[in-house]
């Protein structure tokens, strides 16, 4: 599980010194994660860049 304690997460992020583009990708992924309960998220990477985000969401109906 990811350690969500604030300081450690902040430290890790600071260490990465994310570019704007990387921040956008992470924001998008976080947005998707908040919206789905069950499913799959796929990042398609070409030449070091995320070119596509795909997802499949699953709902139990019974």
């Amino acid at each position, binding site marked *: 599980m990811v350690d969500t304690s604030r300081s450690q997460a902040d430290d890790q992020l600071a260490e990465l010194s994310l570019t704007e583009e990387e921040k956008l990708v992470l924001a998008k992924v976080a947005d998707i994660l908040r919206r789905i309960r069950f499913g799959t998220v796929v990042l398609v990477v070409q030449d070091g860049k995320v070119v596509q985000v*795909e*997802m499949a969401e699953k709902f139990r109906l019974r």
Partner: protein
Amino acid sequence: MAETMQAFSSQLPVPVVPKLAVRELVMTRRTASRETVTATDQLTFEVATGEFVCLLGPSAAGKTLLLNVLAGLEMPTSGEALLDGHPIAGPGPDRAVLFQEPSLFPWLSVRGNVELALELVGAPAGEREALARRWLTNVGLERWADAQPHELSAGMRQRAALARALAADPDVLLGDEPFGALDAQARELLQREVERVWLEAEGRKTFLFVTHNVREAAVLADRVLVMSAAPGRLLEEFRIHAPRPRSLDDVLVGRVVTEIHDLLMREVDESVAREMAR
């Protein structure tokens, strides 16, 4: 990348009245031994305008019965089936059905079959030939317009049936295992044709296909509804947000295929166990 990501935040438009709706639909049928069997049980779901939905389930889950109800060919035992919010009372030109066996009239040419469909929806006589030719060209059959159905391969006959179904410009295309009897290559070609036609309609046409082919559903559908073994109920729904055309090699498609496949195998195993315990 910004564009592909943007596309995500815009969810499918959800109109107030769904194009198709099924509410607590129960269908029973009588077997030869006069037993009453429940085919679908309390089925409830909606299909929005412009959606491409695949309904997937084991044999005898009542998929064909359900499609027949939506086509207006059968009435539900109880519950209701709605088109634009109104109960479906019979077949109509607003819905075309693509069956597993392309039901072309053998005494008419391929073009004659398409023209007949146009005549039935009241297309002016002077425009029918041009419209028929355009649709046959659209499915790659322009050179076969004057051939008789028996001269065509199974895949070409199904393409002719697709041209006939779409020439009448229906709002809804219902498919009952439309590619089930085709070889793998013809199947893939037709899947591409169908997807292209649906895309070109830009959200105006609603497609609902019944299939037992998991890969077909994962490649084609916005939403896959998975049904249980008889009596058919809905088990799970998969919403697939991925650009088209999709390929079976796509990671997401492969993942969805595996999940649905496992779900169906579990369901079939359980239903066999239930039968044995009876």
